[in-house]
């Protein structure tokens, strides 16, 4: 059967040019995949430079000014160009229409426009680096410093502004697609959990992103026209900026993590050959996280000088968000209990996800409690916490998704052994990298400092060593995945894991229009009766070579 790679090319648009004008959701997903991987590897390199600089006291590889720009650029790229779009834009675009039995998303042209906006935002960010110097404000662009610094804040902020539009349009597209294009026989409670997570995410993207978009415009207005919005010297309120910034940027954390949770909810039942525990509870918890997660933004601001009443209210609300997150973790573990578990690379990444995300979540409670927060605010403890949730969570979910859906997207399987080694290297490096940061934070080492006192030297050295292990693991993972593309198509990739959602009912790679006949929608999306009876799955593949 002809796959979407063999789509006829329009006249005058051969090769790569036919991809640049495509409306096919699968091709757009792959455009996102390779551009996102580029940004990810760039930001990993910048992160590596930061840790190399901090590995030894004094100047190592960067000047102080360059260090400030590098950690800002690392944050901006990782947040706006990798973590926010990674799962929805790549795997959402590719699999959401297939999961619901549709031919494409509801607005295919808008989908392509989103990708162009994404690329434009990235290019503007790079331009700002080479014009007047990248901002030294950190990715949060806090006022009044972001208004007074001479670095190129306006261009970087404009880049984030463009990227915001890309994110909103993707969210709008997904909501409309799920409402209007589901297979006729597919009700809401027959949706796969990844689709549900994308639905909850899309609402947050659509509602919260305009807040940051307008806020960033206001920063530019203040810089160019001297309007006193946030700068106290001009009669503005700097705390208002923090409110507006975190109104988006905290819900954005859930834009990042919810699709990751959706990925794990797909992989765990397939790997355990067992119906997911608490389908409805997971759906409800996704929506609850989206709603409750939008109400806790000011827990980033306990030391900002806002009222004590606000500190109390937002601290209380923060603890509420832990409940739906815990429901998910409990459901995943309960699904594995007494399951016929078969170890595969995506499952290994998923198990690492559960552990790392749980540590991230629990240390989040330390930060959510106002009393404890005051002591570790703006220290390395915070850096370790958000990397445990964002990288240990979303990053590992992205790796899991890559390994889970790679054979479906390309019709080729990677080497399992290398994938396992990469997973172990990344996880071990991760622990060695971030656990010392928890200790450094509790000892009082502030974040974003260029140099430090001698008592922090050991922790920083270990963290730097861990970073090198992690980068080696990521490198091996990328080489392993990309090397598979040079091989011939692998037999048995139509359903290598024994999955039951609709993407596993069609050939790998999928045909242009996804389904040649109306898809058969199951009453319940995680019914493994037939898979267990047939004994199919990864066990039928050679785990040494993945073939």
């Amino acid at each position, binding site marked *: 059967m002809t796959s979407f790679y063999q789509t006829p090319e329009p006249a005058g648009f051969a090769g790569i040019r036919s991809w640049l004008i495509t409306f096919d959701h699968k091709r757009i997903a792959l455009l996102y995949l390779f551009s996102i991987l580029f940004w990810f590897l760039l930001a990993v390199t910048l992160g590596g430079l930061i840790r190399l600089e901090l590995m030894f006291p004094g100047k190592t590889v960067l000047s102080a000014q360059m260090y400030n720009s590098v950690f800002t650029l690392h944050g901006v790229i990782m947040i706006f160009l990798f973590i926010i779009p990674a799962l929805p834009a790549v795997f959402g675009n590719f699999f959401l229409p297939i999961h619901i039995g549709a031919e494409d998303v509801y607005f295919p042209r808008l989908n392509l426009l989103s990708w162009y906006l994404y690329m434009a935002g990235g290019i503007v960010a790079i331009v700002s680096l080479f014009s007047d110097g990248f901002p030294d404000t950190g990715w949060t662009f806090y006022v009044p410093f972001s208004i007074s610094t001479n670095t190129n804040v306006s261009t970087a902020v404009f880049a984030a502004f463009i990227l915001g539009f890309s994110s909103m349009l993707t969210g709008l597209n997904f909501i409309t697609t799920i409402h209007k294009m589901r297979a006729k026989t597919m009700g809401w409670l027959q949706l796969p959990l990844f689709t549900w997570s994308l639905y909850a995410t899309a609402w947050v993207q659509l509602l919260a992103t305009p807040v940051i978009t307008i806020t960033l415009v206001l920063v530019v207005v203040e810089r160019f026209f001297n309007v006193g919005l946030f700068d106290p010297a001009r009669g503005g309120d700097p705390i208002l900026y923090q409110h507006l910034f975190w109104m988006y940027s905290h819900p954005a954390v859930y834009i990042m993590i919810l699709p990751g949770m959706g990925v794990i909810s797909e992989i765990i039942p397939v790997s355990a050959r067992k119906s997911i525990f608490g389908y409805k509870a997971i759906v409800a918890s996704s929506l609850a996280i989206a709603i409750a997660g939008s*109400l806790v933004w000011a827990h980033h601001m306990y030391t900002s000088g806002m009222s*004590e*009443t606000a500190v109390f209210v937002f601290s209380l609300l923060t603890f509420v968000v832990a409940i739906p997150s815990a429901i998910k973790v409990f459901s995943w573990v309960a699904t594995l209990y007494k399951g016929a578990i078969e170890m595969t690379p995506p499952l290994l990444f998923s198990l690492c996800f559960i552990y790392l995300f749980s540590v991230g979540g629990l240390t989040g409670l330390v930060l959510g409690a106002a009393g404890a927060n005051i002591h570790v605010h703006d220290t390395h403890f915070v850096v370790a916490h958000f990397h445990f949730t964002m990288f240990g969570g979303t990053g590992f979910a992205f790796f899991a998704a890559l390994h889970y859906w790679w054979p479906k997207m390309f019709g080729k399987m990677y080497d399992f052994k290398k994938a396992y080694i990469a997973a172990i290297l990344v996880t071990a490096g991760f622990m060695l990298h971030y656990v010392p940061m928890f200790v450094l934070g509790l000892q009082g080492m502030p974040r974003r400092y260029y140099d430090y006192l001698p008592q922090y030297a050991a922790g920083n050295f270990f963290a730097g060593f861990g970073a090198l292990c992690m980068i080696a693991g990521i490198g091996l993972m990328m080489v392993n995945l990309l090397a598979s593309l040079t091989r011939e198509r692998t037999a048995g990739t139509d359903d290598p894991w024994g999955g039951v959602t609709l993407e596993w009912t069609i050939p790998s790679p999928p045909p242009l229009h996804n389904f040649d006949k109306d898809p058969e929608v199951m009453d319940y999306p995680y019914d493994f009766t037939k898979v267990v009876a047939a004994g199919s799955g990864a066990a039928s593949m050679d785990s040494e070579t993945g073939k």
Partner: protein
Amino acid sequence: MASESHIVEYKTLGLTLAALLVLTGVTVGAASIDLGWINVWIALMIASVKAGIVLLVFMHMRWEGRTLQWSFLATVLFLAVMIGFIFWDVAFR
């Protein structure tokens, strides 16, 4: 039905425009009377009514399906909560 197209009569559009102009006049009139802090609330209420009329008639929300209507209300609720929650800070500083 949300998917069915509909054409609003000129008469309805004209009446809507007239209502908006009248309400603009009321806003100007109300602003010229000094009622203290109530002035702001009156202006905001009139503006809300005008926004509602525009949404319902000019933007066709009145004829849309329930999903779109609820989606719109969700955005209004979100905005209200966002602004409202800032007062946990501002009102108690």
